[in-house]
């Protein structure tokens, strides 16, 4: 094989992808036709062919026939699917992505726009901002497109009026501003007569800005995220011969031979022996974002498709709950409680829609609380998965911070991920020491139970702040104590000052707080005490961990009261502070609460009085802790120590 030579032409700049979006009939296709015509990008005979087609069909000349390749599109003069077409500016090659403006084809609009580096939002100067103008703009925002140019088309129909231009500009910019987009330019044009596109318009001397073609050359392709922490989602593991190769594309960062990598979520580690590319001259020392590579490792650790390789210090978050800002393309509505498959980079997982937090009306940006999201709507949704997912918040890493939702065989939605108010499970998952060995007690639980007349237990009260957990716990403790039972309440006051004095109130610290309470409660239960805990403990995963720590005799009691009731009670004035924005991530207000799916007992303090609730819980406890306490075991023979040989 001859030595590779970089040809001069291969130094061509990377292409710029520009998507043209906007309301139906605002002139997207005409604009594209004009751009191509004015830059001499038509193939020989194409213009004549189009004219001929129009004559044959007896319709006025339509630029859109250039792009609308399907007979059905030409028949109905409507763009059904997205298309891509190349042209050249002075500086570079561009791919123009035509996106259908019709609401029905939003799926196709997204499929086109997601490939773009920049967007041109076409607004009809006469009609102004319309429904799809807004919906498309909102989608650009969700797709992460920052380079947006507004083209105000059909200026000829408003007599090239500067006043009208300013009016519609203000309307457009106001909307874009609200969703966090700032257009780089607003250009008044007439696509039909080619004004301010490739040549300045004589009819709009008041316009001082650049023409569209020049403005396009100020944009640049989105660069690969080489500066971000390494993310290499595993695509496949090959064993074509004795060598095992981990294959994937680097989505961000840089990997070097000799680096130690951690694979999430398994947290297994190995060192990179070599970076592999076929037919590559010499050894590869490093590879960066955008490169499809192979890796060989020093350890035969288990690695599978979907794992994410990173450096240990800057690993992705691990979680089984996340929020997503989604656009929904499914024909059936998305509903709370339903299961879907998601794809997150190369990983697939089953998730449940835990809650639909808001449905966003793109028309006026109002938010509504609803239990379903209809076709073509945008919403904020909380998803929960059974397994741990390795991901990043979208703002920190685009490629690991977004997912698509699958129903049956189809992609029915996409979403960008937020982890605001949610903890990273990595820190506590793997902090465990390896060198601890269990030492068997000589005393058994039965012996303790026999002496106390009851077994130990963990009675875990969970519920919103103000639901009455502490009130109930203290009363229950009192009742049990007066019956001669061994009991103790763990609550924020006696835990936060000592055991957890080092913890703050970040999501991670809160999770650690609950973990410690769970472990301590388990020890106290083993020691024979009926241990009551009174913590909001909003996350199912945390409560599951507490249950795992306790092993047996863990009872989850859902102290239920609706948010309104709790807020009315507000015994510590916390809701008031939270509403005033003084407490960030307050459960129920700005941070989610996940009610137990199958609590061992549910008591509703909004509809029942304190005494009734106390009685319910006490009876529940008595039924469980007495059952197997046998007085015959009240003393126990200590088995003789084994004689050493």
């Amino acid at each position, binding site marked *: 094989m001859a030595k590779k*030579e970089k040809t001069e032409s291969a130094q061509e700049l990377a292409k710029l992808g520009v998507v043209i979006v906007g309301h139906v009939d605002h002139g997207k296709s005409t604009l594209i036709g004009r751009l191509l015509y004015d830059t001499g990008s038509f193939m020989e005979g194409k213009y004549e062919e189009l004219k001929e087609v129009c004559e044959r069909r007896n319709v006025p000349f339509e630029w859109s026939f250039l792009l609308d390749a399907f007979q059905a599109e030409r028949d109905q003069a409507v763009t059904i699917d997205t298309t891509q*077409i190349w042209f050249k500016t002075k500086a570079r090659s561009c791919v123009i992505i035509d996106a259908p403006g019709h609401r029905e084809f939003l799926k196709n609009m997204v499929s086109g726009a997601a490939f773009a580096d920049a967007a041109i939002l076409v607004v009809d100067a006469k009609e102004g901002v319309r429904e799809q103008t807004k919906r498309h703009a909102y989608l650009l925002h969700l797709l992460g497109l920052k380079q947006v140019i507004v083209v105000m088309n059909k200026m000829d129909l408003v007599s090239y009026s500067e006043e009208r231009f300013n009016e519609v500009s203000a309307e457009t910019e106001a909307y874009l501003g609200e969703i966090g987009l700032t257009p780089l330019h607003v250009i008044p044009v007439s696509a039909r007569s080619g004004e301010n596109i490739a040549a300045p318009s004589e009819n709009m001397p008041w316009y001082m800005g650049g023409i569209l073609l020049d403005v396009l050359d100020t944009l640049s392709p989105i660069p690969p995220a080489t500066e971000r922490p390494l993310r290499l989602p595993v695509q496949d593991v090959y064993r074509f011969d004795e060598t095992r190769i981990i294959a994937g594309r680097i989505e961000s960062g840089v990997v070097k031979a000799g680096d130690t990598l951690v694979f999430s979520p398994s947290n297994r580690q190995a060192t990179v022996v070599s970076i592999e590319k076929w037919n590559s001259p010499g050894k590869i020392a490093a590879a960066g974002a955008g490169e499809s590579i192979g890796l060989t490792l020093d350890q035969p650790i288990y690695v599978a498709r979907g794992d994410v390789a990173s450096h240990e210090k800057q690993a992705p978050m691990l979680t089984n709950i996340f929020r997503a800002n989604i656009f929904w393309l499914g024909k059936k509505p998305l509903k709370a409680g339903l299961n879907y498959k998601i794809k997150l980079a190369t990983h697939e997982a089953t998730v449940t829609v835990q809650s639909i937090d808001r449905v966003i009306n793109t028309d006026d940006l109002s938010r509504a609380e609803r239990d379903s999201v209809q076709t073509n709507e945008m919403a904020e949704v909380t998803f929960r998965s059974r397994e741990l997912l390795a991901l990043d918040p979208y703002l920190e890493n685009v490629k690991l911070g977004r997912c698509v939702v699958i129903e049956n065989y189809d992609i029915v939605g996409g979403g960008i991920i937020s982890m605001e108010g949610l903890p990273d499970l990595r820190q506590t998952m793997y902090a465990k020491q390896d060198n601890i060995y269990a030492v068997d007690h000589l005393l058994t639980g039965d012996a303790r139970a026999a002496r106390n007349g009851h077994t130990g237990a963990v009675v875990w009260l969970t519920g919103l702040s103000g639901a009455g957990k502490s009130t109930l716990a203290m009363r229950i403790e009192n009742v049990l104590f007066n019956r001669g039972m061994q009991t103790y309440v763990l609550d924020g006051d006696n835990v936060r000052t000592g055991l957890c004095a080092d913890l703050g109130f970040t999501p991670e610290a809160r999770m650690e707080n609950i973990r410690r309470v769970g472990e301590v409660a388990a020890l106290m239960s083993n020691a024979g005490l009926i241990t009551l805990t009174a913590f909001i403990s909003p996350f199912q995963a945390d409560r599951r961990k507490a249950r795992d720590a306790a092993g047996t005799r863990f009872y989850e009691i859902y102290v239920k009261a609706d948010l309104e009731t709790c807020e009315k009670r507000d015994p510590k004035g916390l809701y008031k502070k939270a509403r005033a924005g003084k407490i960030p991530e307050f459960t129920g207000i700005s941070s989610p609460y996940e009610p137990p799916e199958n609590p061992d007992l549910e008591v509703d303090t909004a509809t029942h009085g304190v005494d009734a609730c106390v009685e319910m819980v006490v009876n529940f406890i008595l039924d469980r802790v007495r059952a197997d306490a046998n007085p015959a075991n009240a003393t126990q023979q200590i088995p003789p120590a084994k004689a050493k040989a």
Partner: protein
Amino acid sequence: MQDYLDELESQSIYTLREAYNRIKPLGMLWSIGKDSTALLWLIRKAFFGHVPFPMIQLDTGMELPEVYEFRDWIIKEWGFDFICEQCPPEEEMDQTLPPNTRAAARKTEGLKNLIGREGFKGMIVGIRRDEQSMRAKERVFSPRSFDGTWDYKDQPAEFWDQYKTEFPEGTHVRIHPILHWREIDIWRYTLRENIPIVPLYLARDGKRYRSLGEKNITVPVESNASTIEEIIAELETTKQSERAGRTMDSETEDSFERLRRSGYM
């Protein structure tokens, strides 16, 4: 730092690895032309020198002799599984199609026979968006019903490199790993990587084949480009469409659409 050819290559490798992981059994239509031979090269890149699924030629017996010669040489040189599928005769085609379109439709039928017999779930095809306006609307993973038809009015959503990779029984998927390449990119890459080509692409006596089809329905175009460098220089300025030498494209306004809808590549 990657240059733009590296980026194109990396994206194609990503697509190929997705296809190989998600879709089984997989095959690739190798027309022996410049595009699908560059694609075959990309497959060797993606799978570290291996070609882990068969290359398939839909043979009408009408290719130019140089094409067959080149085919046999590459198979010997590179070594991979090869299936030569004989296409049914023209008399069995839909007689309402214009004559040259009818000749092209033989490949569609050959492909249907092959898929029906061998049960392929995925077929890799080396088409590009810039070739033709129907192909410009294609997806990277493009489902086909059992009889090969393309429901172009309701294509799956495809974004963020997430593809439709699951299908009900009876459907198969076309995978298009070089959809985003242009003709000039293929030539620049062929030059850079030193990928062998059928010599018919290079001009002799003022003519060369820009696009290789069967000898009965393809004609050479006027050109003096006798090296790949000269082809690239020619493409930088040409206004001729790549498929100008493919007679079936322009027989009627919708002849190519009818072909594609019913399963043509």
